[in-house]
């Protein structure tokens, strides 16, 4: 860029602003709704006329939201942990070892990544009903691990290919044990890839809705998005709009935190599988 004229600056600035505004309006709207007083919720102004915390104190004191929130966190974390461990093992093999069947594994992951969750809904419903997994944590964790795995294998094998593995050999020559070579040299290099993968898998579990409402029936295992989806049906809350909005904002907070802290990693992770090939 040799010189940037004022006109160019204004042009890009306007474009940036439009994108940011269009992106944020729906988010700000739900935040605004969550602060609206129940009496003024039917007032279509964008920002609340009268601010209130009532919606938040309402949902944060009822087990019909707290329990699903705990389910979401627990199921998400456990599924993410298992998926990342299993995917790391497979991705290491894909990136580093020669063995027949590698292409089959990659092809299979691709197929599963394209797999419509709804195709699983009916058979899984019946299998879990028979096995007693219906409406339990493992009943959701198992399918989430399976759907998270292809994503994990892609992203991680792309990351693992970039690691200079010669360093491992060098460390061994310098007298490190294989374990030391792994923990001191390779693990720190592999960590960013694993963090990225963990974030992407967790976001997927946090977001999942179809299986969450198909394979659960009560708050024993229902995750937060699924529970919010059923708020409207029950008349447990005087004005569901405010409660739903407050609950929606609560489950959006972790996402905003992830995005703010890991923007680069998320972008790298999302694009690694697609372009690196």
């Amino acid at each position, binding site marked *: 860029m040799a010189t940037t004229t004022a006109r160019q*600056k204004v042009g890009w600035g306007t*474009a*940036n602003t439009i*994108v*940011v505004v*269009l*992106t*944020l309006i*729906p*988010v700000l709207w*739900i935040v605004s709704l969550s602060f609206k007083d129940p009496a003024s919720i039917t007032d279509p*102004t964008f920002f609340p006329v009268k601010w209130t915390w009532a919606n938040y104190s309402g949902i944060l004191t009822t087990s019909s939201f707290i329990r699903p929130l705990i389910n979401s966190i627990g199921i998400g974390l456990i599924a993410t942990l298992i998926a990342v461990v*299993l995917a790391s*093992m497979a991705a290491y*093999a894909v*990136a*580093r*070892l*020669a*063995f027949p069947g*590698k292409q089959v*594994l*990659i092809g299979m992951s*691709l*197929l*599963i990544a*394209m*797999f419509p969750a*709804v195709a*699983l*809904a*009916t*058979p*899984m419903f*019946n*299998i879990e009903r028979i096995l007693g997994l219906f409406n339990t944590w493992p009943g959701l964790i*198992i*399918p989430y691990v*399976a759907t998270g795995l*292809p994503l994990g*294998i892609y992203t991680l094998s792309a990351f693992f*290919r970039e690691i*200079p*593995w010669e360093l491992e050999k060098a460390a061994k020559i310098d007298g490190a044990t294989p374990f030391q070579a792994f923990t001191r040299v390779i693990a720190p290099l592999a960590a960013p890839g694993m963090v990225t993968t963990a974030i992407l898998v967790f976001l997927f579990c*946090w977001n999942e*809705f*179809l299986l969450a409402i198909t394979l659960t029936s009560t708050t024993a295992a229902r995750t937060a998005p699924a529970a*919010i989806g059923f708020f409207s049906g029950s008349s447990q809350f005087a004005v569901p*709009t405010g409660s739903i909005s407050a609950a*929606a904002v609560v*489950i*959006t907070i972790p*996402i*905003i935190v992830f*995005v703010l802290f890991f923007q680069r990693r*998320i972008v790298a992770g999302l*694009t690694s599988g*697609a*372009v690196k*090939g």
Partner: protein
Amino acid sequence: MSTTTQTAAVGEQAAAPGRRRKQLSEGARAERRLGWMLCAPAVIVMIAVTAYPIGYAIYLSLERYNLAFPNAVKFVGLSNYGAVLSSPFWWHALTVTVIITVISVGVELVLGMLLAMLMYRTLFGRGTVRTTILIPYGIVTVVAAYSWQYAWTPSEGYLSAAFNNSAPLTKTVTAIAVIILAEIWKTTPFMALLLMAGLSLVPEDLQKAAKVDGATTWQRFVRITLPLMKPAILVALLFRMLDAFRIFDNIYILTTGANGTGSVSVLTYDNLITALNLGTGSALSILILICVAIIAVLFIKGFGTAAPGSDVRR
């Protein structure tokens, strides 16, 4: 790009093809075994949760099996498929799904390309834009869907108020339009990120050379950027097509599939949870799977999309 497979292990592997076939060296055999062992857990989980249920779904789809009448289970051959394929509900849901998929992915491609250009070329605020657009990508679809639903609710929402207190979610065409809008808002960032990664593969020198030769911005875009980005565009389109085809969350929250806005996924869910009809539900699952397979095959064969992750050189 797939710069062949490994970096460090290249030395060991280069020798491998020569002595393959008859006897593998002890090292190569150990490597094989380790490779299989490391992949086994992932493979077992993936098979247990996808291949097995699909096989089971095929079996269920050949039975009359309704949980409301558990004693009336009976093998009925292909009649569930006959019932689905001759039902107007299936064809309507399929039409709705295809319309939503084609329009939303088409619009997303154009908007995503513009957004990718912006993120790639903008002079300042690049980080801010990238961070902001990750919010729609990351946000729970249900949350976003509620935001749109309330925005379009008469006497409650700002958008409804802005459009003369209209209630678009109560009519088929406008409701589908709102569903598409919600879908576009949520997934354009993903498209843009994939396209931006493709943009970074276009060599800057080529652009400069064309500029020196007097090519206009548009000519450079059509003649240089687009052809070089083709693989990235096709991968992004394939991913988004398959994703849009299984649309469920947005519709479920916005309309619950009322007024003829249900997609094939919504139809299957209703069949399972409301009607408890496992036979028909499984037939629907298999039919959706076939549709998805057709889309994937069309892309991979028809357009020559290299499957991401495959080590095929483009």
